[in-house]
């Protein structure tokens, strides 16, 4: 039986706007429709960010609620795993970064395991108090953390929180490659990230994405190394050099082709739940 590879689609993110690519879904209705399209194309997990009415990133619980409600009401057949961000606005408070998880209880939520200088311009703060509170709350609310790591030090931080009981094994990592101030995206670095994870947090599952030039290298690399993959316009508004992505679906379809050409199969949401241990 073919090995299953989970495709996560990150539809929107906090940054790209229609001026960058008119196909970025921004409103709750656009995002709900987009998630459904991507699910039909093979995505098993949807990582969602919200935008305010001006198109800026927001942690508005109302926007998350509206999007999830639209998806469930209009597409009741869609069983995609929802993974809601906790980092959609650099000015959000600790409370607003978690309120939507408490109310909506998605199966997954992002957990950014350390602070960094973001794009050489601002602070992406995930201080110890916030990470401890978020980790314990996610356990209480039965929301599986997707541990986003931008460098190997963040993996070590996850191992610390695992020992402390803030996080619970088995962990699931999202390796974020090629982001400014994070580890550059290369195969050598991806191998090092995985080796670090295997050493410090054995038994973990992992996924990977690369922004910009390393996007396809990281996709192929993750599949070849037994990981899972994330695609979507949060990370890349371009499909190829000089070519804007037509849709998130287009990116998911390519990911599915890569997986099948390698000899694996895209995981269904049910299979993703089994792989990630959701609902246990």
């Amino acid at each position, binding site marked *: 039986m073919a090995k299953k590879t989970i495709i996560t689609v990150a539809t929107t993110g906090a*940054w*790209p706007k229609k001026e960058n690519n008119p196909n970025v879904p921004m409103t709750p209705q656009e995002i709900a429709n987009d998630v459904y399209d991507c699910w039909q194309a093979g995505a098993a997990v949807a990582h969602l*960010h919200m935008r305010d009415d001006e198109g800026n990133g927001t942690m508005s619980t109302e926007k998350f609620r509206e999007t999830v409600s639209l998806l469930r009401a209009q597409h009741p057949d869609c069983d995609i795993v929802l993974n809601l961000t906790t980092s959609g606005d650099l000015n959000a408070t600790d409370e607003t970064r978690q309120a939507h998880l408490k109310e909506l209880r998605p199966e997954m939520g992002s957990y950014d395991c350390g602070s960094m200088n973001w794009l050489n311009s601002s602070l*992406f703060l995930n201080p110890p108090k916030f990470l401890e509170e978020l980790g314990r709350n996610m356990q209480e609310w039965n929301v599986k953390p997707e541990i986003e790591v931008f460098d190997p030090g963040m993996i070590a931080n996850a191992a610390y929180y695992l020992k402390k009981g803030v996080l619970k094994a088995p962990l699931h990592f999202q390796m974020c490659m090629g*982001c400014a101030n994070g580890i550059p995206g290369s195969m050598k670095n991806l191998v090092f990230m995985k080796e670090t994870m295997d050493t410090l947090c054995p038994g973990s599952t992992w996924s990977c994405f690369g*922004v*910009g*030039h390393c996007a396809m290298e990281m996709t192929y690399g993750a599949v070849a190394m037994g990981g899972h993959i994330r695609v979507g316009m949060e*990370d890349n508004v371009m499909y190829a050099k000089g070519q804007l992505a037509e849709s998130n679906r287009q990116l998911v379809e390519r990911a599915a082709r890569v997986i099948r050409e390698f000899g694996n199969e895209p995981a269904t949401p049910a299979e993703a739940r089994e792989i990630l241990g959701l609902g246990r």
Partner: protein
Amino acid sequence: MSWGPCFMYYHCQACGKKFKYAADMIPVLGEKFGACPYCGGNGVFEKDGARTLDDADYPEVEE
């Protein structure tokens, strides 16, 4: 959360044309990074960050 690539936006000191480089290409391009792809002149750094609203006005230099 990711915000896509970090770009550095330039115009050419000699011919005035606009262009941009992705910061992750620094180790790949080395000394060529920041140079004008049209005439080889020196690029004048303007700004950096994720894709700006006028991003399309700055063709990306990739090699």
